[in-house]
């Protein structure tokens, strides 16, 4: 039994035989040709066949993986027709008299080199696209075809790397999983694997290919990123059970889509999703989330090299609101500071950043930053059902200050004749012990509470979340935490304020019953947990 570790990119396991993915190695030699014109024609013909093949692959991908994922092949077609790329090739043939194969392979090297030297993951991954299109033209020139899988068994495909077109060309019914030596989670192959629901492990390292052989039994564990070659019988039994459970669970959860979040005694609870970027909305919808309970707006700040403009923010918020088509969307104002830093804020280095100038404290210290975000939020509010949530609240005066700024922003919009919704709900995070303890005073001020359990635990138990040495003192089910949540829930309801939980405890199904007994109105979890929590809720009987 040998183990290799890579990065799992799709949460599923596979047990089956290995197949080494082979490409017919075309050895490219540089030859001088006598008839340059004829060679240019050969290239042109090969290019046209490559384009025709891509068109076909594009249509296959469109059918199997959807438009978003098929786009890459449209881009491949555009790349093949790129002026600079073509000039580089035709110059080598027409001016220097080289053979077409060599000209294409040289252009492939220089253009893929350009991409792989860029300082951006996304662009680096484009080097593989250049090699992919070039190999396609070369195989058209030499009339060689990529080998097709011809076997009855389902296989775990192992390769150094798979080009996007190779991933799509594989017959899905014959692929159990794929494992590659290289690759990044940003590569199209990884993205395609996820959308085609094929378990995959990438970045295992190139040694493994020399040590494995066709037909060996193996386990590919997409959760842990492990590839286990010739597992012992104990491991096989373990994974057979995992596979069985996984399949049963999958079917069961799929069946829960479209069902209500209702307990056996008829108590309803909202199950929303936490998202960190506009792209995650699709995942939330796919998992049947009833709304967005936490949209972390930090990504706009963290992915940018300067303060995001009002327009950029507006565009992002509007797009989430529109995609959720009228379902509740709670956007949390930026939570920069502590472990999330952006250089251009020029924040002083702090000895104790978790207790420092972060989140709402930055907003109230530098209202111009805050106002830009609020303007963007209010402008976007007419496109859906918006709630704005403020993090790191400790006192009533902070809320008063925030509301005053909101009022100013709305006045400005009125003066400029810019529309906004009057129905925007304002809420606060309960993530400091102070907020929970004075929740009776905070509740009348706002429309909703959302308990951020991660910070609440860290502040209540005095345990740094990033310090593994204090793990054993950091009991997430500590009675103090549960009591603080309970106090907040009681005070919220007495004042007609609703209360949700958006921290990790919301997805902890061992606590779901206790939370429902406290009267929690909403649980907001990662999209992949929505159905699991729904499943739990539907088994609870609060009257028993």
């Amino acid at each position, binding site marked *: 039994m040998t183990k290799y570790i890579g990065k799992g990119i799709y949460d599923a396991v596979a047990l089956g035989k290995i197949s080494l993915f082979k490409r017919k190695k075309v050895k490219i030699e540089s030859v001088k040709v006598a008839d340059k014109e004829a060679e240019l024609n050969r290239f042109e013909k090969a290019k046209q066949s490559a384009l025709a093949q891509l068109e076909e692959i594009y249509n296959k991908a469109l059918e199997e993986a959807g438009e978003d994922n098929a786009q890459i092949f449209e881009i491949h077609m555009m790349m093949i027709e790129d*002026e600079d790329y073509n000039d580089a090739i035709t110059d080598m043939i027409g001016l220097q008299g080289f053979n077409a194969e060599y000209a294409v392979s040289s252009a492939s090297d220089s253009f893929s080199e350009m991409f792989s030297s*860029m300082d951006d993951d996304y662009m680096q991954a484009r080097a593989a696209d250049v090699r992919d299109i070039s190999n396609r033209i070369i195989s058209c020139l030499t009339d060689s075809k990529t080998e097709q899988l011809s076997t009855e068994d389902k296989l775990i495909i192992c390769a150094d790397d798979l080009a996007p077109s190779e991933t799509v060309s594989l017959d899905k019914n014959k692929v159990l999983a794929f494992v590659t030596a290289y690759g990044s989670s940003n590569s199209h192959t990884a993205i395609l694997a996820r959308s085609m629901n094929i378990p995959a492990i990438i970045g295992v390292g190139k040694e493994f290919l020399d040590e494995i052989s066709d037909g060996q039994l193996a386990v590919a564990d997409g959760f842990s990123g492990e590839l286990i070659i010739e597992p012992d019988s104990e491991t096989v039994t373990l994974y057979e059970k995992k596979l069985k459970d996984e399949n049963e669970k999958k079917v069961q959860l799929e069946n829960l889509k479209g069902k209500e979040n209702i307990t056996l005694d008829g108590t309803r609870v909202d199950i929303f999703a936490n998202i960190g970027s506009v792209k995650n909305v699709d995942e939330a919808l796919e998992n049947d989330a009833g709304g967005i309970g936490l949209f972390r707006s930090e990504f706009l700040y963290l992915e940018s*090299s300067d303060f995001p403009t009002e327009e950029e923010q507006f565009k992002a918020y509007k797009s989430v609101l529109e995609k959720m088509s009228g379902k509740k969307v709670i956007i949390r104002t930026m939570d920069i500071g502590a472990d999330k830093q952006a250089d251009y804020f020029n924040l002083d280095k702090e000895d104790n950043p978790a207790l420092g100038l972060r989140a709402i404290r930055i907003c109230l210290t530098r209202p111009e930053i805050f106002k830009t975000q609020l303007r963007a939020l209010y402008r976007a509010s007419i496109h859906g059902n918006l709630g704005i949530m403020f993090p790191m609240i400790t006192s009533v005066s902070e809320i008063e200050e925030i509301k005053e700024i909101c009022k100013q922003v709305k006045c400005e919009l009125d003066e400029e004749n810019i529309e906004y919704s009057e129905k925007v709900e304002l809420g606060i995070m309960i993530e400091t012990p102070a907020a929970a303890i004075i929740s009776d005073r905070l509740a009348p001020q706002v429309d909703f509470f959302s308990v951020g359990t991660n910070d609440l635990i860290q502040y209540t138990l005095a345990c740094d979340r990033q310090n593994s040495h204090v793990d054993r003192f950091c009991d997430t089910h500590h009675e103090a935490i549960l009591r603080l949540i309970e106090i907040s829930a009681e005070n919220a309801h007495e004042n007609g304020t609703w209360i949700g939980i958006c921290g990790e405890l919301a997805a902890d199904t061992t606590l779901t019953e206790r939370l429902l007994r406290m009267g929690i109105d909403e649980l907001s979890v990662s999209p992949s947990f929505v159905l699991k929590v729904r499943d739990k809720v539907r088994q609870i009987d609060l009257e028993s």
Partner: protein
Amino acid sequence: MKTFNYTIKDELGIHARPAGLLAKAAKAYESEITITKGEKTVGCTKLMALMGLGVKCGDTVTVNISGSDEEVAKKGIKEFLEANL
């Protein structure tokens, strides 16, 4: 010659797809259209060169247009950028 500046608003910057569409759009005009980020200038009809500029969200690029239909081209390219990037 016509010139204008544009700040990229798309989260991913000038990534593959919009670069492809931009190259296509630029080909529709007679005028020579270039795009400049910092020290680097590339022809707008060239997909890989456009991607190679590495333009990210928040970057400001300068678009230069010169030729017989520069007025129409400026309008067209500007609209394209606003709608797609």
